[in-house]
């Protein structure tokens, strides 16, 4: 246990001010990931700014039919919210497929987005890790890589982002509201997280004193269906080997809108634009014959996959999961 300073944020602006000017600072909300990391020695902030009591815990239905989710809304509360269950089943399912009931009761929306990789080498201080200690090397490459990336990785880092919620939000074109020292800005969720490149220690585009205050979901047009499908090593309480968030609107037998995001495969929620391009405008009739185009779409996305020694299975698994998710949405009966 390393001593640290603790500040209770008086208000939203005060939280950002309190977090400015430190060498190592972290916002504390649910603490479900940060506190673990402090115990492991992975994180050693000089100061914790506690934002758990800020008035950011509301879910608001917006006039345009969208939803604004406060940053400290608990995962359990968000999953149970009537508007989420009614309009964004992909998000409700994703939330409920993550962690355990106890963790979801604590974990917050902003914290879920900012949780860090569960790469075993990142968590083990005795092993080199570019994400934990830039420039020391990547221990996962050549090691145990079952949970690691097949898309968008680099020679410096092959970690995956562990969130389920963020994958659903990526497919929903969510917008993240951030308050920083220079004011408020809005970042598309798909641009919040980074690919590792040669700076894997930077998970996101945020700076340490940037505070996520809300996530907004645009409305989905009438007739849009969505779902989340997660494949993992046990039926509950495990991170995704592969997950798929899919949003689909078929009109007159043609795909009008499709948005697909993959989890468990990359350093960020992976928006499958290539697959979407294949699908948009394609005829779909709810029959098994649809699988052909779904498979082509998945394969188009996964053509760029570069699996590691221990996770080649994720490529066919991701393909099959995309196909089955789209089948689940396109069939007449659910």
């Amino acid at each position: 246990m390393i001593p640290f300073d603790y500040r209770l944020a008086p208000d939203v602006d005060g939280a950002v001010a309190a977090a400015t000017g430190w060498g190592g600072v972290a916002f504390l909300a649910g603490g479900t990931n940060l506190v673990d990391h402090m115990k492991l020695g992975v994180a050693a902030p000089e100061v914790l700014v506690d934002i758990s009591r800020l008035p950011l815990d509301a879910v608001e239905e917006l006039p345009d039919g969208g939803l604004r989710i406060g940053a400290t809304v608990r995962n359990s509360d968000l999953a149970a919210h009537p508007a989420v269950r009614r309009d964004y089943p992909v998000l409700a399912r994703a939330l409920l497929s993550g962690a355990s009931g106890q963790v979801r009761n604590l974990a917050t929306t902003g914290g879920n987005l900012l949780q860090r990789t569960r790469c075993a080498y990142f968590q083990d201080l005795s092993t080199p890790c570019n994400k934990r200690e830039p420039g020391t090397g990547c221990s996962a490459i050549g090691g145990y890589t079952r949970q690691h990336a097949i898309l968008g990785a680099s020679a410096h880092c092959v970690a995956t982002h562990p969130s389920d919620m963020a994958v659903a939000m990526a497919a929903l074109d969510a917008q993240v509201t951030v308050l920083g020292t220079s004011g408020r800005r809005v970042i598309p969720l798909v641009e919040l997280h980074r690919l590792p490149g040669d700076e894997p220690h930077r998970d996101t585009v945020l700076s340490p004193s940037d505070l996520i205050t809300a996530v907004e979901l645009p409305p989905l047009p009438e007739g849009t269906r969505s779902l989340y499908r997660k494949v993992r090593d046990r039926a509950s309480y495990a991170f995704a080997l592969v997950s798929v968030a899919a949003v689909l609107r078929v009109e007159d037998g043609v795909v009008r809108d499709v948005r697909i995001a993959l989890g468990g495969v990359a350093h960020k929620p992976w928006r499958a634009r290539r697959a979407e391009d294949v699908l948009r405008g394609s005829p779909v009739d709810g029959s098994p014959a649809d699988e052909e185009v779904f498979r082509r779409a998945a394969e188009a996305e996964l053509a760029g996959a570069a699996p590691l020694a221990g996770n080649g299975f994720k490529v066919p698994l991701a393909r099959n999961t995309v196909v089955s998710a789209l089948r689940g949405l396109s069939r007449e009966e659910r």
Partner: protein
Amino acid sequence: MTVGQPVERVDGRAKVTGDARYAADRTLPGMLYSYLVMGTIARGRVTSVDTAAARAVPGVVEVFTHENAPRLTSDQHFMPLQGTQIHYNGQIVAITVATTPEQAQEAAELVRVTYAPETPKAVIADALTEVYLPANQEVIVGDPTAGLAAAEVTVTQNYSSPPHHHNPIEPHATVAQWDGDHLTVHETSQGVVNAQRTFASAFAIPQTNVRVLAPYLGGGFGGKSPVWPHSLLNAAIARQLGRPAKMVLTRAQMYSIVSHRAEFRQQVTLGAKRDGTLTALVHLSTQQLSRTSENMYSHSISSRMLYACPNIHTRQQGVRLDVPTSRFMRSPQMASHFGLETALDELSYQLGIDPVELRRRNYTDVNPTTGERFSSRFLLDCYKLGADAFGWSRRNPKPGSTRDGHEFVGWGMATEAHDHNANPSSAMVRMAADGTVLSQTATQDIGTGTYTVFTQVVADALGVPLNQVKVELGDTNFPPAALSAGSGTIASVTGAVNAAALAVRTAVVQLAVSNPASPLHGLPAEQIITQHGYLFSPDRSRRESYRAVMARHGAPVQNTSSMTNARGYSTGAVFVEVRVDPRYGRVRVTRGVGAYDAGRVMNHKTAGSQVIGGFTWGIGNALMEHTVLDRRTARVVNPNLSTYLLAVNADVPDIQAIFVNKPDPVSTALGARGFGETPITGVPAAIGNAIFHATGRRIRDLPFTQDKLL
């Protein structure tokens, strides 16, 4: 009679309210806290340890390294901190001691160790040329070569299973306190008497100077049977510093210093006649050993004891690796049993004989290795009861023949079998002057229900209500009794508890019939009935309560008895249904039925819980559980319950447990046999066999993760 009834756990309330005090709950005045520093290489030497920063942490009392640690030896284990040599990753390289646990941990994180590392060998595949046969690890019965030559059909296959860790929910903890040369230890121990011996030997003091307490345990699974070096070091530190000392392991630390189930490879060859009769059984295995021990714990006993086969060859090879020493882990015979029961399934398809029928045809009443007759064996009943309850007769034998939507449905089965320990044990029963009863014995309840069953045994023997009986366990001040391991607690200790209770009953009855003040005066003692807390005349026209007899007597009545029992062999049959979704390679276990011959069932609830626990663990073992070693460093990659996956509730279907419930005539434990380790042994094979039935794909390497079935 309460024996056999599904009596609720008598310790349940204490456990859920926090009244039950575990080793780590003990806090003593002036106590210090020890914290371990774990090494980060698997092979090589420590070249220096810098403790300056650690010593500067406020509250730190001492930092021990190999240079200044107390000198200790152990006749059982490699003792760390006695030199610079490193034998496995996660070896203890320093211990910090401070006035709070937080200070000790902070100091531990500041200890800087430098090494001269060498390249380790982490897995069996790294050292195939170094496989050897340790002494006394080969058994040959009959003429296996001739048996194979006489076979009309043979199956030869290789199987493997990874290392596993015990992972009891309660971490290991030890609290040591010295008073002169007397030592008291609160220890997470499955055997306080064994622990007492180990501590006494390590510190060269009489055994009677050592008191070990373990009244409650949050699981052990064999990992808490020995006293590990960290406990001896903590006690040595307490003595050297002159203050009580506590050490509680973290979950991650439990992955290197409190043992595991060894990585295991095996080849099973079965020879059979067309009718399924086995002519030869050859079982070659290789298990991981360590640099400091060649002890083996995964034995091929099933191949030597379970089936009628005139020609048997088991050869248990080892290979030394730069990993910690393995040890017994729940149902140690299950690793080899998986190979045998899978090979039998493969043989059944080759012969076109139903898997249950194949096993029936090779049933034996006689131990095929020793020729001795089993004292009682109702395995055929288990096959029938289990198959009927499961609906096995409706099974279409053709693999891949049943589909439900995207899923393939398969049914599989396996025999379950494990032998059990029986160690001489003693117990005390005392009826106080107020009629309440206390029983004490130095065995343990490791979570299996020992408190409850002994309460039933005492209550029945005396004829008093359960709530008039209190049982105390896990203290070397009590009469010595068995280690709680090898499914041996009930088998070993029940007889002594029962005998002591019966002796007290006899004495109290005598007090009544010999006293003119008693309404039972003058009746023959042997005709007195005891029930509901009363002594009755044979026609029940006269009675007197125990309470009244004891009040008149005015003093306790006490007896201490000893008993031995024979080792035994509890068997059963397990049937499972799986659903396999080939899109994800996902296997779900959707039904489970087990039928067992465990002798007399003492408590259907606690025995049934052993089945549920074993089946649940078996699902995890089959589908997900494995310790992952980084082959480059021989370091455990998944030392936590987030990434060391065990089955969770959502993985486990409803499980039906059926018991033949016929007393074993030679068992002194009221006809009960040891049972805890039997229900799990066949589950991984049954699941693999069901996967084959569902899909036509045979997976021979545990666990059956999704990548293997895509």
